[in-house]
Each structure stands twice: as C-alpha cells, then as structure tokens.
C-alpha cells in the first residue's frame, strides 16, 4: 500500500443537466435539513484543498457543493465521497462563506440513507476491530454511516 498520487482532478464524465438528472426540490431539502444556504458557495476550493481525505474521494468537496446547487441528487448519493468524509470539520472551519460543509455532507448521507443507500452495517465490522475500537468510534460509525 502506498500513498495515492496527490490531488489529480477526478476524471468524471461531463455533468448533464436535464429532467432525468436534476431532482426537483433536492437543493431546497438539503438547505432545510442542513440549515445552510448552498447558493452562498462561490467555488473557491478551500474545502477541497484542506480536506485530509480529498485524495481518497471521487468527487471533491467543492464539486459536491456545486452538484448540490444544481440538484444532481443521484450523482451525490451514489458517490464514494459522502462515506469517505470523516466529519473532521476542517472544511467548515476554513470556508470563507461560513458554510458548514460537513453539515451538508451529513445531510447528503441522511438523504442517501432515506433512499435506501446504506454503506456500513454491524455485520461488516472486523472482529478484531470490534474488540479494540473505543465505543465512540463504533457509535460514530453507525450513527453516521448506517441506517
């Protein structure tokens, strides 16, 4: 195992905006649940540059914000990014627009789980881990990543 190469821009297909891809009401729902205003993001990229997990993500945090602004729900709730985010609040602290980006990630996880997309269940945990990880880790992972 070695470090993956740095922040190469993810090669994703061009975003298509049409009635099949854009989910009506999605942006409004994210705003309501998170208490943030997605439109205040102006794509400076500070969240992505500070994110300690950016190199593991398929969609960088600033792109998540953009896709959410555009209402591309399916793309977001099926991404790996929302499950890789460790909720460390680095992006939230650094956002010059004061957006709680981690809160938006949490909201996206919640919406994904409402739609039946689950990521991690008790049966997937390694027994050695289960015997040693402190309880906040176990409670945290189930509260954040599992229905």
């Amino acid at each position, binding site marked *: 195992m070695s470090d993956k190469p740095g922040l190469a821009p993810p090669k994703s297909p061009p975003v298509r905006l049409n009635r099949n891809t854009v989910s009506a009401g999605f942006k409004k729902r994210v705003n309501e649940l998170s208490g943030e205003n997605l439109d205040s993001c102006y794509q400076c990229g500070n969240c992505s540059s500070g994110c300690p997990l950016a190199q593991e993500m398929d969609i960088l945090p600033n792109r998540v914000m953009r896709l959410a602004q555009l209402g591309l729900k399916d793309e977001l709730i099926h991404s790996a990014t929302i499950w890789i985010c460790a909720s460390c609040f680095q992006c939230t602290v650094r956002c010059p627009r004061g957006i709680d980006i981690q809160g938006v990630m949490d909201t996206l996880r919640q919406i994904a789980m409402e739609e039946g997309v689950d990521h991690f269940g008790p049966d997937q*945990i390694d027994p050695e881990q289960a015997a040693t990880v402190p309880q*906040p880790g176990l409670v945290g992972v189930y509260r954040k990543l599992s229905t």
Partner: protein
Amino acid sequence: MAKVAYYPGCALKDRSSHLDRSARDAAVRLGFELDELETWTCCGAVPPVSEERVMNLIASSRILKSVRDSGRDTLVTICDFCYNTLKRVNYRIRNDEVARRRVNSYLAEEAPQRDYIEKDDSPWNDYLGEVRVLHLMEYLRDVVGYDGIAKGVVRSFKGVRIAPYYGCVMLRPHKEIQLDNPENPSIIEGFVEALGAEVVRYPYRTECCGSYLSVSSPDTSTRLCYRILTSAQQHGAQAMVMSCPLCFHNLDTRQKAISEAYPDFRPIPVFYFSQLLSLALGVGVEDQGFEKHYVDVTPVLEMIRDGSGRVDTE
C-alpha cells in the same frame, strides 16, 4: 477538596479506563475531585446536524439538565467526542428556540417516569443551556492554571520532546466549541510546557486521524495516521500526547497496521495528557494502565527523572 461535576462517558469506563483513572489521580494531586454524575447515559457520540432531528438532542440535554438541577453550573468531561457532543447540544439549546422548546417538552413528559434522575420535588424548570461544558484540558488551563500544574510537578520531563496532537472534534467546529484557535491551537502546547517537557511543533497536529473511519475503512485511517506520526517524528518527537480515546486508538493500536504497510516506519510511544500529568505529579507508573498500550512506552519513561536525578521507571 473542591468537587467538580464529571461526565466520563462510555469509553472511559471500559476501553480507555486508563484515561479515566489517571485523570482522577492527577485531579486529586492538584486539589480537586472529579465527582462523577450519579446517573448518566450515552451522550450520543456525534451531535445531530440536521435541523429536524431534535430527538438526537435528548440524551445530552437530559445529562446537562441533571447537572443544572443538582445546583452545579460546570460539567467537566475528558473524551473529545463527549465534549464535542455535549457542548454543541448545549449551544443548540441556548440558540435554537424551537429545538429548546421541543426538547424541554419531551423531558417534561418523561420526567414522572424518570424519578431516579429527578429526585427533588422542585417545580419544573426548562433547561435553557445554563451549564458550562468544560474539557478537562480547559479546566486545567483556565481554573487550575499552568502555574498551578508547574508547582505540583515532582518528576522532571526535561529534554523529553513531546508532540501535541489535537485531532478534529476537540477544536472544531470553532463557532460552537470556542476552545482555542482551530488552525493554530496552543492549549496542549502550554500544558506540555507546564510539565517541563519540550514542545514539538509540526504541521499535522490538527489533521484528522480518520476518526471512526478506522472501523469502516481501516486502510484510509492507516494512511492518515502514518502521515501524522511521521510528520511528528521528522520534527524530532519522541512521544505523542492527546486526549481523545479514538485518536489514541488510531495513533497507538494502529501502529501495528502502519508498520506492516510502511517498512520504513518506526513506532513512537503515545500518551494521554492525563497520564503525563499524573506521572509528573508523582503518581506511580503501575497506575497508568500502560499495559493497554500497543507501543512500548519504556523509552520515554526512562527519560523521566525524579528529584534526585535518577532514572525513575517504577
């Protein structure tokens, strides 16, 4: 002896019991007692973000209300997750009127069945966020003071190079936590200096260790921890110090996986701040729970000296 209300949380009762024990020992030597709440439950471990999930605020609110109802205004906790959760829920209760109303109406309704918590017959009072939630580190800085610690030190850490590690939830989100500067904190540095040790400054001290990803994607956490530990080592660290049970697990136990993945990696001993504190204040080595550590801490213990200047590993 001054008593201060203390919420240990689940990890400190079980997997991280050495954090709890060393903190209690250290507190007694500093002249106060960590007075554990009579009844407490899980705090929830992660605070709810979504506006509509008020139910997830209940557990923490109940704990905070029981502290207020017992006539105390301060609650000390050590686990970073508990600290983050209790403090953020308190913040929400103080600032979000709708959440406050809903939480209180729930607590009022369950009160008759919970007479083991609501012991007195005093009239019902809504919880408005009156309690101050303090991290033990914060209590040491603001109430005991670093001078107070330095006065009690009987073992010398002179020349030991210690790297503070903050992790994420102790400092962030800053708007609600307000413990220290989230980008350039100094609270653990000040503590290490009070013990007489040398502070190692390195860039990864506030970088996330992977937190609970350690459970769902261990390899990710291994990579992050390798980066943090080697950064500290490159800046000359001989030991790491932190307060979070999960960070401790990731940075100590995970060194096994790191050694397997990265052949160039050399293990580095990891301590809770309370262990270093109680060692400095004269508590015995055998009371520190070092048998729970994965990495051998002896190299650091051999550098600690007592008054007569001889090596003190007993």
